[in-house]
């Protein structure tokens, strides 16, 4: 008896990931689903910034030319795509994909499942008035304190709308703020018909999603253990889940690709961004990472089993983006001899000038690249004969003016500060607007009735 296996391939681990990966996943061997995760916490704020400048923007634009490359083969082979590329504008993203389908002569052959209802920006005042404080999960402060600065508010939806879209016949499911793991769990629940309260299987599908949601980070990319022996990273195989109905699965990658799938590569990904391992909370359930069993079952094959889970919580997480203020980072490079000493002297001079100008900042942070930027004081005393050191100084303020003035104080150091300085060809540093993240919780009963799944055809 051959056991039925569903293959889910990771195509993107974040917005800006390797553009060839989804193409390789489609062409490199059999897959049933292509899962593309575009949304990190920071990503939503970036998309929001773009949408505020252009109302048609606000989704992962890379997704559209990518779909253009793979759509003919995806349609021909019946591969289905799940992606949260919709960002803060899923309808705009869906329309762009359908436009591509029409251009490729695939009109009528591509059905897009469009998931909306995660966006609650327009309901914030009503929710606050109804007694939902949407307090910051880290600080406990109520949202009312920054209400006038809020730019976007999106609830993390789970797998349910993806399952509904797939049941409705969608070939490509485009969502906004759906959890990374829901993009993998959704297809598994759809294919195997797992009940939504089969907590162990829900947890298993969630862990599968967590393993592949960061792309090649589970298959040899960014792998610390034995990094020198990881071969072929010029053409890394992105991870693929081969799932069985009982919830166990194998992590693998296509043959003839680089990287490695090992217990070490999967473990490093499992612990990535982990909180309490006993309760990995998603909208769909709570996975217990201390129950996961890993076993190398072949070359580039890791068998994952034993996963237990618990019931979902009554709350959903909300990702709120708000306008915080401004920041800028300036850099200069100081050369041997006494490179570090010169860079430190320059930092002191710059700070004195900022003080003399009466500029006020929430934060001034100095790092010396080559000395302490990555490990701080743990890096120990620098070698006295360092060939060069980069001075990197950043400022952050609620107002634009002091940050703007700071950006004009970097270049003058070249002629008015310590010697042997270079590396300023980039010109004045840019003033960046800071859109910050405010994580909160909301009762799911306030949200779920508003989630919509539409099937739109070309």
């Amino acid at each position, binding site marked *: 008896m051959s056991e039925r296996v569903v293959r889910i391939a990771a195509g993107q681990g974040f917005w800006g990931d390797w553009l060839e990966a989804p193409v390789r996943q489609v062409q490199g061997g059999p897959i049933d689903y292509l899962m593309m995760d575009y949304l990190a*916490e920071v990503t939503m*704020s970036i998309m929001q910034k773009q949408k505020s400048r252009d109302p048609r923007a606000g989704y992962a634009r890379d997704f559209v030319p990518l779909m253009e490359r793979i759509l003919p083969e995806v349609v021909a082979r019946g591969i289905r795509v799940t992606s949260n590329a919709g960002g803060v504008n899923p309808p705009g993203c869906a329309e762009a994909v359908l436009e591509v389908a029409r251009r490729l002569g695939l009109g009528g052959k591509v059905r897009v499942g469009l998931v909306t209802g995660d966006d609650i920006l327009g309901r914030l005042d009503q929710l606050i008035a109804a007694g939902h404080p949407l307090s910051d999960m880290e600080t406990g402060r109520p949202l009312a304190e920054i209400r006038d600065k809020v730019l976007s508010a999106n609830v993390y939806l789970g797998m349910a709308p993806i399952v509904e879209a797939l049941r409705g016949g969608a070939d490509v499911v485009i969502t906004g703020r759906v959890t990374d793991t829901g993009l993998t769990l959704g297809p598994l629940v759809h294919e195997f018909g797992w009940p939504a309260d089969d907590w162990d299987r829900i947890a298993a599908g969630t862990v599968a999603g967590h393993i592949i949601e960061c792309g090649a980070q589970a298959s040899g990319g960014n792998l610390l253990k034995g990094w020198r022996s990881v071969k072929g990273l010029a053409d890394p195989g992105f991870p693929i889940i081969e799932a069985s109905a009982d919830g166990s699965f194998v992590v693998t990658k296509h043959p003839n690709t680089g990287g490695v799938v090992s217990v070490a590569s999967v*473990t*490093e990904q499992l*612990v990535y*961004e*982990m909180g309490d391992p006993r309760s990995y909370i998603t909208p769909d359930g709570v996975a217990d990472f201390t*129950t996961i069993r890993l076993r190398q079952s072949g070359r580039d094959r890791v068998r994952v089993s034993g996963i237990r889970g618990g019931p979902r919580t009554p709350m959903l997480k909300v990702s709120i983006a708000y306008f915080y203020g401004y920041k800028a980072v300036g850099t200069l490079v100081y050369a041997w001899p006494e490179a570090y000493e010169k860079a430190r002297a320059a930092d002191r001079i710059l700070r004195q000038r900022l003080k003399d100008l009466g500029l006020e900042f929430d934060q001034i942070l100095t790092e010396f690249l080559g000395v302490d930027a990555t490990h701080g004081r743990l890096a120990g005393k620098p070698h006295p004969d360092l060939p060069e050191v980069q001075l990197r100084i950043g400022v952050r303020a609620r107002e634009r003016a002091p940050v703007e003035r700071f950006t004009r104080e970097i270049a003058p150091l070249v002629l008015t500060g310590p010697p042997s300085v270079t590396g300023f060809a980039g010109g004045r540093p840019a003033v960046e607007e800071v859109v*910050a993240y405010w994580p909160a919780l909301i009762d799911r009963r306030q949200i779920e009735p508003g989630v919509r799944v539409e099937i739109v055809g070309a």
Partner: protein
Amino acid sequence: MATGSQPGRKGRGRAKRSVVPPFRPTALRLLAHARSGDKGNTANVGLIALEPEYYPLLVKQVTPARVARHFKGMVSGVERFELPNLSALNFLLHDALDGGGTISLKTDAQGKVYSTALLRMEIPVPAALARRLRRE
């Protein structure tokens, strides 16, 4: 299962008393690999034993108090969780990222290299194992 600690609470004497023969201070990187990431202003470091038989040593020696001391001045507090099934410990390093996310001015705003910063620690290791690790 979480055990927590504030940095700098415990005196140094305690760590020293356990470093008696036949134990040798040994670089943690010879016993473990690691990956780190962020959740807001908190960095997490997953510390994974290079061999399953090293895991009990990590549990015993890489205590939240020692990790807090290691990162003193860089984080406000440390929590530790155990994953014996993966031979791994998970550490949460609070207030490690200058506000985190888009607010942070740090090069490592998302805590990607706190992993190797933790591996800079030294822990007391039985002398025979310490000798073997250094040879490898």
